[in-house]
């Protein structure tokens, strides 16, 4: 009989084995009785000669290969039955593990999709981005100018063909309704640097890349699907962009989303020979030559910088180039956050595992007697260990399965609620790698859970355990192991709680930042003026003037204004400025400031105070004397001891002087977490600026005004898109979406950790109190008061958690510095938070041990002493 047949016929085989052995015994007895022995004696003798019946059976069953599978099934069934009989244990263990594994898999999925998975370009490790950097401005990653690009191309030794690109906005008017599409103009070699070719059609021809060449465009897969009806014959079709006719020559693959997901079009960048250094609008992209390291490329660019300084601009600005791996450019800003989240969720899993190990151990001790009996009946040591491991495996498999479900749900949730600036979000999914990770975690943890009790059992002394009450004494020896688990749990939970509290405090402070204006009842919108129809600055200002007149007449509007930037985080233009009769010392950079083009009522509409001088008036228009208003930071930094009103300054070095007529309070344009930056306001009537935001101060609910404001715009020009209609409060909330997201996640993890650790402390203390029930009985019988008993139990719990708090504090001191970059106006080692959270956690563990302590005081000494 093959082992598998034997396996399926297990029941029959078992019956046969019984019958065969019984036959033997009966035969022996019969012979002995026939020889004159009395039946009772004969039976005893037959059994003696035969040897251990169960052992023989076990050995017979052990023949052949059926044993491994069969005993595994048996162990599984037995394990399931044990778990079924202890629903509370099972539920707690499985749920704990599922939460740990689920949260881990979810976060790991995000980490995998965003950080680990290879970028969809050929040999992505060799791709780099090149930017400029001017340390004196406190800014890096400044775009390059055309001259920078030419010098880079001419003098480098480390790069394959350097390329640059610039983002452009296009008005796409071939479709039913006009839309604004984001595109990129790219220099020759851009696609081959990335190693990606169009999926359909072709790349640009050299003649299309020359100034004056035929206008050609490559579209994204997305754009092709939606706007070109996914037709293969779309190649060669003409579409209208910015009032010019372009020929579609190619469609990129769906996975191609460079430089950003929002980019839907690519056209050749046609550069004219530069006449000066500037403007700065190009981003550099290049592939390192084979064998060239990042370090070598950086040295190479330093040499290029040196040469630019020597040969061209001996007194240039002190700018340098920075070379950044493409991956760092794409995901650099989310990497630390994700790693911190990964660590946090790892802590949660560790706590969960410690909890379950503890549960299993407690259960194993309770089953010590059972194990002894099984050992006495002939179960091998290996067999017992295997059975305990199987039970661990059952728990962790259930936990992993449920965890995977939780992960699935939470990954979708994470993607839905994560801030828009997380790159590669669409690449996040639970894949084989993530599943493998879950499986590994669950198998490792099952080994871990099974092992602790299994090791215990294999050291079991049969006689001691079988003796009455023997199991009780032995339990004390393992208090140390359980104590260590509690200490570890409390330590980990403390680290997480401190991290979460730091983030929460930071977030609360961030939300209290005064952005420099009153965000209540303030409606904002983006009005995109098509460049090609509004290329004349006067035309633009005329449009705004008319628009503001109409909006101001709407019922419910207090005042309205247009501006080229918007608090808290929309700034379109930064440029250098120079102050009259105060030349910049040689070798230094000209100072940098935010530049805003605003209408007269801008400060009144935002409720930003005028600190000195006057706001803009209607007389500040084209033809009048040029005027400028500066913010408080600029005034304090550049005119510390004098009245700036009446002084003159100008945009960079080429523009005409403008007279300072006022100083206003600081408004944040660089995000709530950035300190105020010097800002210059100029009246839009003296300049033209096509992209603008409309701000409307309402008397009541700002959003209710949205339709009438939109109609006011369209009554002037039906083809102007009015987008992003939001209240200022909404914009402020969105600007802190990223910190809110990470604070929320860390908060959730910390809460999980706290709950799990509390359950852990409670479990250990209450178990150990039950174990000591006899001791308690004796103490009570000898005259101990309830207070004494409480103290006895609580002291144990508090001792363990204080040790955990001490270890957690050390860990937190070592780890919270990794949070420093994510904290706003909170020190990573804030003593108040460290103390507060420690006291809080100690308090929680005190409560967790008070419950079993109270129960211990209710022990009746008589019952306790009889308790076996």
């Amino acid at each position, binding site marked *: *009989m093959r082992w598998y047949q034997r396996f399926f016929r297990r029941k029959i085989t078992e019956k046969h084995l019984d019958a*065969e052995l019984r*036959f033997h015994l009966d035969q022996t007895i019969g012979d002995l009785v026939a020889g004159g022995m009395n039946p009772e004696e004969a039976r005893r003798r037959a059994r003696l*000669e*035969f*040897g251990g*019946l169960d052992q023989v059976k076990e*050995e*017979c069953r052990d023949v052949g290969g059926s044993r491994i599978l069969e005993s595994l099934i048996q162990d599984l069934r037995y394990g399931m039955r044990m778990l079924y009989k202890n629903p509370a244990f099972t539920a707690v263990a499985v749920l704990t593990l599922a939460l740990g594994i689920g949260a881990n898999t979810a976060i790991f999925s995000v980490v995998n999709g965003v950080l680990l998975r290879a970028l969809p370009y050929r040999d992505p490790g060799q791709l780099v981005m090149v930017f400029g950097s001017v340390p004196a401005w406190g800014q890096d990653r400044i775009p390059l100018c055309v001259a920078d690009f030419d010098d880079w191309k001419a003098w480098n030794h480390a790069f394959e063909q350097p390329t640059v690109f610039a983002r452009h906005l296009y008005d796409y008017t071939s479709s039913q309704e006009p839309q604004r599409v984001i595109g990129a103009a790219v220099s020759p070699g851009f696609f081959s640097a990335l190693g990606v070719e169009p999926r359909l059609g072709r790349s640009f021809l050299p003649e299309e890349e020359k100034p004056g060449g035929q206008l050609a465009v490559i579209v994204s897969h997305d754009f092709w699907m939606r706007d070109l009806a996914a037709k293969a014959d779309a190649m060669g079709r003409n579409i209208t962009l910015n009032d010019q006719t372009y020929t579609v020559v190619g469609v990129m693959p769906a996975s191609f989303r460079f430089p950003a997901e929002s980019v839907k079009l690519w056209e050749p960048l046609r550069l004219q020979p530069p006449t000066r250094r500037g403007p700065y609008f190009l981003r550099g992209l290049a592939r390192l030559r084979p064998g060239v390291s990042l370090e070598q490329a950086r040295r190479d660019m330093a040499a290029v910088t040196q040469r630019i300084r020597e040969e061209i601009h001996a007194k240039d600005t002190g700018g340098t180039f920075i070379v950044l791996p493409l991956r760092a450019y794409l995901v650099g800003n989310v990497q630390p956050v994700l790693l911190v989240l990964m660590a946090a969720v790892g802590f949660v899993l560790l706590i969960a595992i410690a909890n379950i190990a503890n549960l299993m151990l407690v259960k194993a001790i309770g089953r010590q007697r059972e194990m002894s009996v099984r050992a006495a009946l002939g179960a091998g040591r290996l067999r017992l260990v295997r059975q305990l491991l199987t039970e661990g495996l059952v728990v962790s498999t259930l936990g992993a399965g449920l965890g995977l479900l939780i992960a699935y749900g939470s990954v979708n949730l994470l993607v839905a609620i994560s801030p828009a600036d997380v790159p590669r979000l669409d690449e996040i999914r639970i894949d084989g790698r993530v599943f493998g990770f879950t499986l590994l975690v669950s198998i490792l943890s099952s080994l871990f859970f099974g092992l602790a009790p299994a090791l215990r059992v294999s050291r079991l002394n049969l006689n001691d355990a079988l003796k009455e009450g023997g199991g009780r004494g032995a339990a004390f020896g393992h208090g140390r192991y359980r104590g260590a688990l509690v200490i570890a749990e409390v330590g980990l939970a403390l680290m997480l709680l401190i991290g979460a509290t730091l983030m929460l405090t930071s977030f609360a402070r961030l939300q209290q930042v005064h952005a420099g204006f009153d965000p209540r009842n303030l409606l904002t919108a983006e009005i995109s003026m098509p460049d090609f129809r509004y290329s004349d600055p006067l035309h633009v200002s005329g449009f705004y003037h008319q628009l503001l007149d109409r909006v101001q007449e709407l019922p419910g509007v207090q005042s309205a204004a247009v501006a080229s930037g918007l608090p808290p985080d929309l700034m379109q233009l930064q440029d250098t400025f120079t102050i009259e009769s105060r030349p910049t010392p040689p070798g230094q950079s000209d100072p940098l400031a935010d530049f805003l083009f605003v209408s007269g009522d801008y400060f009144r509409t935002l409720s930003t105070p005028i600190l000195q001088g006057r706001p803009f008036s209607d007389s500040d228009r084209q033809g009048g004397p040029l005027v400028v208003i500066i913010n408080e930071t600029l005034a304090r930094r550049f005119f510390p001891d004098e009245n700036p009103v009446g002084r003159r300054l100008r945009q960079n070095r080429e523009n005409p002087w403008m007279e300072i007529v006022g100083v206003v309070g600081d408004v944040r344009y660089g995000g709530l977490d950035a300190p105020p930056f010097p800002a210059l306001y100029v009246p839009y009537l003296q300049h033209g600026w096509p992209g603008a935001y409309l701000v409307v101060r309402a008397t009541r609910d700002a959003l209710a005004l949205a339709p009438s404001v939109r109609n006011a715009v369209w009554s002037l020009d039906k083809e102007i898109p009015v987008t992003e209609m939001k209240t200022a409060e909404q914009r402020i909330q969105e600007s802190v979406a990223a910190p809110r997201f990470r604070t929320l996640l860390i908060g959730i993890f910390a809460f999980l950790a706290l709950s799990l650790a509390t359950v852990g402390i409670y479990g250990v203390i209450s178990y150990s109190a039950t174990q000591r029930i006899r001791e308690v009985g004796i103490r009570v019988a000898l005259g101990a008061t309830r207070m004494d008993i409480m103290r006895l139990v609580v002291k144990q719990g508090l001792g363990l958690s204080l040790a955990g708090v001490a270890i957690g504090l050390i860990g937190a001191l070592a780890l919270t510095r990794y949070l420093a970059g994510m904290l706003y106006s909170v020190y990573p080692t804030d003593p108040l938070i460290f103390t507060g959270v420690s006291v809080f956690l100690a308090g929680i563990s005190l409560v967790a041990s008070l419950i079993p302590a109270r129960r211990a005081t209710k022990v009746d000494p008589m019952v306790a002493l009889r308790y076996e």
Partner: protein
Amino acid sequence: MREERAEFLKGTLDMLILKVVALGPIHGYAIAQRIQQISRDFFQLQQGSLYPALHRLEDRGWLRAEWKATETGREAKFYALTPKGRRQLEAEVKNWEQLTDAVALILRTAE
């Protein structure tokens, strides 16, 4: 004195069982009796240990088992030798003889 009787040499039990079964289908109890009788109670056979050996030999395909009625009418599991078992027996007997010959030779010539 039972205690002084020899334990089976490792591996010899299998050969003895095959030899006994070779005489014709026979059940476990009878095998035990036969071995003890023929060896004139020389071998101490813990009777239970016979069965794991029987099951092992069956599993290897040397023995074939069948449930049949005994003379008393009771059902018992009868073991019979398979052709494969016969070849195994021959090989083991040959092995055994070579071994005992060699041992005997050493004992004789070393005197």
